[in-house]
């Protein structure tokens, strides 16, 4: 269980991005954190990833404050795939995948490579192994970045705007692909794309102006919020 309790965060310029946010993330679901641009989604994601420290409130993983978790334990429990993916351009897809298992989990090169190839096959992108990030498409890059994080077998994998760079067809394919993977981890989709989220997430939370305005099953959020996606 991942819990966000009363979390508030203000940037140094005084802008209050999160105001008393409370969300509970049960395991074994695909969850959505929804909201327009500037609603505080990405700030929340960065707080959960311990890249930003909230001024008040706490974030707990299985009852333990994440601030007290050792680096390795935190990163193997909560994975993050950023909107820009940040694949390592100087490494092949395979090398991108094996870096953390080798350096963080101290696996030997052969084992890490075998596992990475297995994962790539399972995710249907085995043919990308020896390519460089500059040589693959946006959709392939998105899957590669998720595969890279999945290798650490996190309990939660947070995806920041995963559909931002995908066209309509690719988005549909990608959604199905995620649904097939939901046994692997608990996906938390942070997005403004409520249509996409409504198709794959079972429940979620809606952020408005740094506050949680709705939580519950996706269907309810859609109905009660009257949320309409804006063109960006």
């Amino acid at each position, binding site marked *: 269980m991942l819990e966000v309790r009363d979390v508030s965060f203000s940037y140094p310029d005084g802008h209050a991005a999160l105001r008393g946010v409370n969300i509970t993330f049960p395991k074994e679901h695909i969850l959505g954190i929804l909201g327009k641009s500037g609603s505080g989604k990405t700030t929340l994601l960065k707080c959960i990833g311990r890249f930003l420290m909230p001024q008040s409130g706490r974030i707990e993983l299985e009852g333990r404050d994440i601030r007290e978790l050792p*680096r390795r334990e935190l*990163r*193997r429990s909560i994975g993050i795939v950023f909107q*820009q993916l940040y*694949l390592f351009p100087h490494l092949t897809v395979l090398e991108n995948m094996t870096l953390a298992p080798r*350096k963080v989990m101290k696996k030997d090169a052969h084992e890490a490579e075998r596992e990475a190839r297995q994962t790539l096959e399972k995710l249907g992108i085995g043919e990308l192994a020896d390519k460089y990030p*500059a040589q693959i498409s946006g959709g392939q*890059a998105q899957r590669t970045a998720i595969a890279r*994080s999945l290798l650490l077998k996190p309990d939660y994998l947070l995806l920041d705007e995963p559909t931002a760079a995908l066209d309509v067809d690719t988005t549909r394919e990608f959604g199905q692909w995620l649904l097939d993977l939901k046994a692997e981890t608990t996906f938390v989709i942070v997005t403004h794309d409520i249509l996409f989220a409504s198709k794959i997430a079972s429940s979620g939370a809606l952020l408005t102006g740094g506050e949680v305005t709705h939580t519950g099953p996706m269907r309810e959020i859609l109905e009660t919020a009257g949320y309409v996606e804006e063109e960006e």
Partner: protein
Amino acid sequence: MYLRKNRKARNAFDSAARYAVAGMCVFLLAVCVRPLYADESSARKKFTVALTGKYPPFSFYSAGGELTGFDVDVARAVAGRLDRELELVTTEWDGILAGLLVGKYDAIIGSMAVTPQRAEKVNFSEPYYVSGAQLFIHEKNRRTIKGIKDLYGRKVGVGIGETYEHYLRNKHPEIKTLAYKSTVDIFQDMRNGRIAGFVTDRLVGLYQIKKGGMPFQPAGPLLYKERMAIPVVKENPALLVKINRALKNMKKSGELDEFHEKWFGTGTGPQESRDAAMTTKTIVIKLLAGFGKTLQAAFLSIIIGFILAVPSGIVLNSRRTVAYYFVRSVNDFIRGTPLLIQLFFVYFGAPQIGLVLSPMQAAVFTLSINTSAYMAEVIRSGLMAVDPGQTLAGRSLGLTGLQIFRHIVWPQAFRISLPPLMNSVVALMKDTALIAVISVSEVIREAQSIISVTYEPLKYYFIVAMMFFVFTFPLMKLAGRLERKIKEKGFLNA
């Protein structure tokens, strides 16, 4: 992002870079390391004497590439009478006294005239020959220019740092005095019409004009007489006494007169050796040896400079700590002052704090520090060009700060930095031309000594330029290739 490139692209990129760097390192280490320490063994106590090697007939290189001339004969005879092994050091005239003062050599036997200013700094021996300052003009002006006063308002050339420069500026301020690095340059400008005359030692002038077949001739009487003597440091009066005794005995035995006859007499005997131009073989060997020294200095400096630049670049890209301000100000100072002065500072300054560096060591030290300042800026901007998100991704995968730097940030920053680093290397190669001033006999100095007997400056400077170009051109091409590869791989976050 959607570039279609097969594996070969990557291989070509990496192997090109790796082979270039590895190949150069191996080659250079092979050429370089050995001679750096070659000249440090000594058996009998040495008598180290400085001269320029570019001042025929007093000191110059013979057809066989050996140092020879009147001053060289005198130095050899004095060393013999001191019962010490002679070691000759060739150095630039404008730094020759400074080198004596910091103990780089025991004495200068290089036709140095006694002047009150010099005598304040050093002790002069008894003079070993007397000559004088003579104005020379172009033959075609012999009817209009009868003496120095006829040149008032016009330009006259002198060797830089020679007594004639001082004399003209003080006694004939109406003349526009131009100082030149060498006689060859003066001859060139005489023929180009940039100067109307030049003042030099009468003996030297006559010898060089005849040797070079130049259409110049003396005008007017000697401007003044000069007594040429051997300077030693004031702290060593014992050596001065011994040198004076040696000179006195050489005069008494007629040895000095023999040398005079040999180099300035009318007889032909020993003259043929110096009149013969350098053989092609000698010239090639001298230029290659010089270029070997150039490469040695350049590549040792590149390797050491790069090793120093990496930590500096990292510090420059980090938070504003004491280390940052230290590196920042040192780098700014180095980049904001002339390399020439840095060379002098290290070469002449280091002995004052008890650190005696050979010319090559001083050159490599200075060039390393100098190039590291520029390389550090390149590395700093390479590090800055790596998307901060790369670090974020590394952290989200659980890597430590050091692992992120080692495996993610540095490999990208290094590739981004490679093309501008190549440019630093090219710049450094060319900067080696300056190390001649601290007596490193690199290729330009060798070329000058060849020119001092062949009188063909354009030809030999062109050859030297081509030697540099053969090395720098592939580096520049490689830099361009690497830059394209990096853009294709999308390293620089656009």
